[in-house]
């Protein structure tokens, strides 16, 4: 994308406001968007780690300027929970790091921390997004380590110490060991097999033949018992569930070939098939290992539970109040919550009255009033009052944990087409077993000596492995490819829906526009005050506001001497500066505070901008006009989606004039204004009823229910955490254009899945008659089957390599397409 244009932050890639801060990189001045990014970039460059910026794959997320207080993790109880003490006094801790996307980020964290005092060992694994480190508690505290990671622009959280590798790493290690045993075993057994085949042709001493067979048996045994164990386990569990899984014929052919060969070896006559069994095992494991690696790489670390809990909470024990981590809470304990704090666990309010933001669960951003005896849910935000609650459920029992389990299940869900393949495979397996039995019976009568090898060849050659790998391999490859271009897919199903979508609904604010308001104009209404002073006052007041429009003032130097700020969410902020009371915010809010509002006729809100007023207790001082610019690639993206057959529409909650102006600028696309969340929902459902498949793109703040209702939903980065967990796909970068690549990749993925399925069926249809006729030796069958599976996996890997057509909408001439 257009990262070369200097209009984005050097550190986080967000668009810049005017008058942004600068950092010096290798003698070149680079702009950054905020004080947080300036500090993080300064720290990285100051440690000589500037090369990070050359090698990273994605911009980081915005660094937060305000340091958080981690000292909670230095208490003895927390130390025991999160760290493990070694005999030499050093402690070991695992940190989960958010926003860790690539190896360059891992390198940055490792090197920055390694050169600091007190850290003796550190390894950051970019695949599992975990840092494992050992530190000397006398020289550096856990809180300082967390602070240092934070200062680089990442956020880290200690994990309860479990010891040993994570489940993820363990799965990888076991798969690798099984593959290695099968691989080494295969090499050896093949050597012996070649000698035996040559011997069969040109004569061999019986004692030597015997010896080679026993050695083959020796080497094949660990392969069958250890490497092929997952196939036996899976076949057994599917048989117990009275289903015919893919692995039934696999287990049957490996087991039968092995047992038959053992008998032949012991009895000293007949043909052995150790080579076929071992080769079959190796190639099957290889296909599955590649598929697993792709899956791990593309997997999102769904850890919504921990992310939504507060860092610390004030626990009350009798008269004593103590800050603890939410992990340490037990049911029945009392907790005091201050305004702005997240609820750490499910519980009941004991005293106090407050408003609570429950948008996490309901998707509604309006706050709910909660008072004594009302329930509170972990992860929601206490907005206004000081309350005390009694904890009822913590950790895995809480509502939040249940929600995140639902999310995990959704993430594990497989696309429709994979389920169809599985169902087809069950019938297929049944047919294969019947066929093998039929062929066996026939050959027993025709030529009993050929019966076993022929049945074995039929079982091996018809193994539906290619069929079972066809979809997951393509899915994993497509997900990986999209992750590289900045689209994170959280549900497998989403890609299939994305490929089939034919309507695209866009939210306006924060989606088509940057969601990064800029100050367009200042109108000073009072002659006794300068515009500079007005801006300084506004910056001071707005620094206490969470409203998106407040960001327009973030780059200005705030006036000093501010006290007693308090805000009304969605309306404005009031505070004293040098003893004078000021209000900033919506027109009605500021006018309420004024004794004698000046006539404001000439300040009527204009069509495309929002206005913010600044006033003191007697009059309106200034009006700020704030505009939100379109994303640079919005127009191109919409046009390309149109060419791809996704008719775009704008649905916005904004005023008609503003929406019409944007729609015109984007090339007169259909637009609806003043849509509430429920109206958007009705629009989505209406389109679905008329047989359309709807893609919904939003920022996820007010449209979480709409995102959930659409066939496939995309949230634009910078949206809330909620949007990230409720949307199927998250756009990480600043541009929308990755969406076009996403649609194209998902369509290619469907195409490749169909090719793979067709290939697998065609191969089986051609090979079965040959095997049944007795023309294929078992080793040929194993080779053919393995090549067919590998072909399917390699075909899916093309999704990674081939560059999707560059996003210029005009059809590219044949021959120039794949030159990139």
């Amino acid at each position, binding site marked *: 994308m257009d990262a070369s244009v200097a209009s984005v932050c050097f550190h986080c890639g967000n668009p810049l406001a005017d008058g942004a801060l600068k950092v010096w990189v290798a003698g070149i001045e680079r702009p950054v968007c905020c004080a947080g990014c300036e*500090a993080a970039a*300064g*720290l990285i460059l*100051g*440690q*000589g*780690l500037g*090369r*990070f910026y050359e*090698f990273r794959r994605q911009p980081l997320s915005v660094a937060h300027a305000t*340091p958080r207080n981690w000292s909670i993790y230095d208490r003895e109880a927390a130390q025991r929970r999160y760290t493990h003490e070694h005999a030499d006094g050093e402690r070991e801790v695992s940190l989960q790091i958010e926003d860790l996307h690539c*190896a*360059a980020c*891992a*390198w940055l964290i*490792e*090197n920055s921390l390694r*050169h*600091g*005092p007190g850290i003796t060992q550190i*390894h*950051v*694994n*970019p*695949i599992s997004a975990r840092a494992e480190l050992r530190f000397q508690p006398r020289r550096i505290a856990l809180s300082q380590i967390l602070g240092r990671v934070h*200062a680089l622009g990442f956020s880290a959280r200690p994990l309860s110490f479990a010891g040993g*590798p994570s489940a993820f*790493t363990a799965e*990888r*290690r076991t798969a*690798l*060991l099984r593959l*290695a*045993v099968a691989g*080494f075993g295969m090499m*050896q057994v093949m050597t012996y097999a070649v000698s035996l085949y040559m011997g069969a042709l040109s004569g061999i*001493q019986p004692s*030597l033949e015997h*010896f*080679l067979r026993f*050695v083959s048996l*020796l*080497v094949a045994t660990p392969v069958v018992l250890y490497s092929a164990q997952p196939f036996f386990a899976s076949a057994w569990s599917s048989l117990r569930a009275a289903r015919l899984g893919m692995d039934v014929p696999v287990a049957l052919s490996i087991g039968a070939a092995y047992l038959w060969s053992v008998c032949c070896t012991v009895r000293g006559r007949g043909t052995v098939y150790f080579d076929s069994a071992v080769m079959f095992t190796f190639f099957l494991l290889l296909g599955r290992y590649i598929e697993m690696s792709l899956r791990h790489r593309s997997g999102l670390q769904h850890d919504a539970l921990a992310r939504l809990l507060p860092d610390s909470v004030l626990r009350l024990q009798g008269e004593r109040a103590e800050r603890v981590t939410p992990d340490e809470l037990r049911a029945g304990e009392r907790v005091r919550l201050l305004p702005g704090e997240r609820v750490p666990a499910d519980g009941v309010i004991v005293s106090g009255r407050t408003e609570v933001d429950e948008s996490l669960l309901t998707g509604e951003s309006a706050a709910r009033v909660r008072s004594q005896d009302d329930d509170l849910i972990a992860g929601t935000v206490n907005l206004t009052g000081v309350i005390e609650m009694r904890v009822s459920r913590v950790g895995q029992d809480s509502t939040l944990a249940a929600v995140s389990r639902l999310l995990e299940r959704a993430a594990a869900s497989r696309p429709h087409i994979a389920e169809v393949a599985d169902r087809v495979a069950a019938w297929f397996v049944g047919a294969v077993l019947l066929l093998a039995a039929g062929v066996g019976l026939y050959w027993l009568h025709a030529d009993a000596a050929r019966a076993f090898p022929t049945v074995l060849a039929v079982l091996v050659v018809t193994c539906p492995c290619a069929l079972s790998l066809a979809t997951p391999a393509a899915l994993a490859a497509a997900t990986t490819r999209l992750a590289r271009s900045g689209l994170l897919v959280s549900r497998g199903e989403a890609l299939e829906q994305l490929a089939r979508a034919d309507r695209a609904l866009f939210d306006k604010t924060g989606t088509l526009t940057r969601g990064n308001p800029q100050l367009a104009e200042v109108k000073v209404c009072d002659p006794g005050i300068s515009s500079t002073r007005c801006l300084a006052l506004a910056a001071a007041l707005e620094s206490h506001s969470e409203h998106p429009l407040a960001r327009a003032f973030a780059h200005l130097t705030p006036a000093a001497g501010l006290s007693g700020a308090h805000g009304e969410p969605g309306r404005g902020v009031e505070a004293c500066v040098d003893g004078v009371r000021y209000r900033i915010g919506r027109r009605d809010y500021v006018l309420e505070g004024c004794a004698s509002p000046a006539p404001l006729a000439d300040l009527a809100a204009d069509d495309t901008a929002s206005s913010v007023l600044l006033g003191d207790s007697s009059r309106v001082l200034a009006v700020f006009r704030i505009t939100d610019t379109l994303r640079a690639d919005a127009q191109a993206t919409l046009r390309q989606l149109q060419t791809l057959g996704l008719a775009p529409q704008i649905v916005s909650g904004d005023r008609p004039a503003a929406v019409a102006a944007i729609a015109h600028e984007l090339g007169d696309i259909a637009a609806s204004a003043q849509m509430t969340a429920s109206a958007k929902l009705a629009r989505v459902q209406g389109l679905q009823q008329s047989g359309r498949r709807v893609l919904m793109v939003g920022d996820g703040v007010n449209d979480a229910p709409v995102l959930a209702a659409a066939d496939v939903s995309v949230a634009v980065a910078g949206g809330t955490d909620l949007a990230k967990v409720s949307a199927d796909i998250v756009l990480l970068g600043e541009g929308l254009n990755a969406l076009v690549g996403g649609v194209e990749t998902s369509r290619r993925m469907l195409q490749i899945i169909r090719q793979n399925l067709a290939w697998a069926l065609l191969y089986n249809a051609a090979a079965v008659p040959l095997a049944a006729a007795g023309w294929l030796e078992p080793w040929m069958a194993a080779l053919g089957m393995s090549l067919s599976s590998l072909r399917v996996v390699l075909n899916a890997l093309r999704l990674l390599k081939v560059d999707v057509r560059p996003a210029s909408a005009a059809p590219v001439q044949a021959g120039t397409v794949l030159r990139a």
Partner: protein
Amino acid sequence: MSIIYLLIPLGLVLLALSIWAFFWAVRSGQFDDLESPGMQILLDDDRAPPPRAPESRDV
């Protein structure tokens, strides 16, 4: 051909050794992260290590 009765068992011993070595390597984490070491060769350079960050820096 009787040398084969010596060579093949020797080969088996080598096989067992290499599998043992591979198990050791995997279990000690050598294969957990195949991405960062490749990156390190690009990122680390031959200059002297960066000066240690002062204990108190004003960020």
